[in-house]
């Protein structure tokens, strides 16, 4: 394996390993903004470790689906992580899949989560699954369009090449089309990752849950894997935002200086995005459930405008 290949592989592993740290950072930032002390940055690791060591209790009415869900969810999300450029503008699975593959790799876990919610036959799981499907049916088109807007800039849907193009652009990377697409992707990220104002990750109210309702029946290692996958999904979305929409950053070559710089910039951008998520979650209340399609409709329109604007710039429509 070349050094570039090793670095690409390593960054994906690092993304998986450090995703809980990002989740911890957001939690900590939110606590600070609310005048609370908040947990340690590494608290998510402790929570995962705790869940992993616990016994798995499965409902008597559940089938093999409930047992398979955690592995499919974690596997699908982890595979998606290998398509995402982070510190280096290259991905280990680059030749095998592009932005469209990424969207569908993220759809597989969602489908199985919803199945898992229905599987045990509890009322909450069913409610969670139906709400999740309602949300994702409007989130996915917006996600696609936002990614296409960035793909037009690079002329390819290969995520590594898209990140490379963005890194090369520098100042020229600030254009209205990309800004609109970034805004759309940010809104989609909040919805897809079950953050406020779409879903409240900290709620204890069964009746209001979306993501949490689907995994109420999960326990032990399965729960740990699903939670880890959830943190990873957020990390993937924020990394996409950082590399495809914020100029500079991803290293173009695999020498140590560029890699170090790329990693540092990536961490810096992720921290900035974590602050943005924490600010949104502090400043707004959760939307009424039936307002969520409006919220995602906004994301869709933003993404559509981004695409049009890119079209005007590129092709001179």
């Amino acid at each position, binding site marked *: 394996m070349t050094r570039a290949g090793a670095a690409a592989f390593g960054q994906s592993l690092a993304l998986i390993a450090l995703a809980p740290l990002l989740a911890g950072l957001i939690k900590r930032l939110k606590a600070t903004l609310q005048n609370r002390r908040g947990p340690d940055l590494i608290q998510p690791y402790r929570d995962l470790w705790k869940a992993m060591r616990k016994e798995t209790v499965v409902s008597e009415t559940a089938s093999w689906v409930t047992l398979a869900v955690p592995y499919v969810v974690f596997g699908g999300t982890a595979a998606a992580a290998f398509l995402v450029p982070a510190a280096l503008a290259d991905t280990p699975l680059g030749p095998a899949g592009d932005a469209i593959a990424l969207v569908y790799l993220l759809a597989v876990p969602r489908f199985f989560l919803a199945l898992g919610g229905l599987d045990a036959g509890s*009322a909450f799981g069913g409610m969670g699954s139906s709400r999740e499907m309602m949300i994702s049916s409007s989130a996915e088109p917006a996600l696609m369009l936002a990614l296409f807007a960035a793909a037009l800039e690079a002329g390819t849907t290969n995520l590594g090449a898209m990140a490379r193009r963005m890194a090369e652009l520098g100042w020229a990377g600030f254009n209205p089309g990309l800004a609109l697409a970034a805004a759309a992707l940010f809104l989609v990220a909040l919805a897809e990752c079950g953050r406020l104002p779409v879903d409240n990750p900290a709620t*204890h*109210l069964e*009746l209001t849950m979306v993501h949490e309702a689907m995994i109420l029946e999960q326990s032990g290692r399965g729960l740990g894997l699903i939670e880890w996958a959830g943190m990873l999904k957020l990390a993937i979305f924020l990394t996409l935002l950082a590399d495809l929409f914020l100029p500079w950053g991803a290293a173009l070559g695999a020498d140590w200086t560029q890699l170090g710089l790329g990693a540092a910039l990536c961490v810096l951008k992720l921290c900035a995005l974590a602050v943005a998520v924490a600010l949104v979650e*502090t400043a707004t*209340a*959760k939307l009424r459930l*039936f307002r969520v399609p409006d919220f995602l409709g906004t994301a869709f329109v933003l993404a559509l405008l981004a695409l049009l604007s890119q079209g005007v710039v590129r092709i001179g429509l």
Partner: protein
Amino acid sequence: MAETRVSCARLAQAARRLRDEGPCRLATVVATDDRSAEAAFVVRYVFACPGRFETISAAVPIPGACCPSLAQLFPVAALFERELREFFGVRFEGHPDPRRLLLHELWPEGAFPLRKDFKPEAAAALPAAPPYAFVPVEGEGVFEIPVGPVHAGIIEPGHFRFSVAGEPIIRLEARLGYVHRGIEKLAEGARAPQGLRLAERVSGDNAFAHSLAYCQAWERLAGVEVPRRAAVLRVVGSELERMHCHLADIAGIATDVGFPFGAMQALRLRELVLRRAAAWCGDRFLKGINAPGGVRCDLDAVRARELASFVKESARGFAELKRLLGETDSLMDRVEGTGELPRRVAEDLGGVGPAARASGVDLDLRRDLPYAAYADIPIPVAVRPEGDVGARMAVKFEEFERSADAVVRALGALSEGPCGGPIPEGAPGAEGMGWAESPRGEVLYWLRMGPEGTIARLKIKDPSFVNWPLLPWAVRGDIVPDFPLVNKSFNLSYAGNDR
């Protein structure tokens, strides 16, 4: 308190007259087991009329133990009668819902705990009750969602049965009783101090209002007036309690709409109030202050001054909180139009407290039947017409501000003098009622003396008992994920309801 004894047959007529002429509302129904004295159960319908309470009582003869139900005249009567049926075995003719209310299936059929001859050992041998039947809702696409009694968060237990079509709620039925402790039975044979300890534990965060109503029942029964200083201190305690309860409610609403920032600010203010309350008599929830005859803990001049300046400071912090919540559009969007409770329903079902006032029902014992020193420290009643979550929140906002103002005024009016002391024991058979406007609404304590200063019967009306049936009406047509918010805006007490 005027009591009119009528026969069972004339009960409805007398009640109708009170309703039409008063106009009076039914406040509570008290039953006593008087089989040893007059071979009957006596049922007392207590009405709140302008400026006074009126009681109509009827003796229900033992064979058959049956009386006509007043549910047609006062829908709220159905609730009280349902309770008497399971605790005394008194049946009511024409009652719309003869199912059990607080006692569950494990409680045997035919065992009536508030009868004087009730024996736990004998009851254990009786057969178990048949399963409780929820009202079925059928139709294409209608689902039932059972929730609780154990919830995901640390809250009191209660079971909710939703019938839904998709997300909209068609019907909600609440089944409570999980924290029934038999407090009214425990009070029988207790002396005043033990009864006081029970009263303070009926509904933990409303401990002061409950102990106040309890003490006033003793004082009325003994014909004692508390000293002026004690009466004023009781106003201070009542309003401090309202302040911390309303802050907790506002924090709960902010939490439930997913706005933890606002919730944290409200909880911070509440914590300060609780600490200040603890500085008074050592208890954060103001327990141990009230006693029959007055208050046990005096406030010296220094602490009174500190309390007044604290409350002023707290009102400033509250103004900031109110502005923050009012300016958060995403929060206001959630509360406006959600959980609308029609005024008619609130009136018919005997709703009290902020929940009723937010639906335009202008009731407040502090003004209507003033106790303690409320006659000299009048507090304007906060009423809103909308009946939604926003209105309930707005009523609590207003009440907090007026409570803070009242505390400052009361502390300013604090005259030198005694705080009260022991009061004479009432004669056996003497009866008295005490009342207080707790943060959740009207609290009533009806007390009858037994021999040697013991309690023969203590009937407690907690506001949550009459307000719980309002909730299913408020959530009709709303969607399932909005239920916790509507529930929180009422913030009813499970323990107070179940007793």
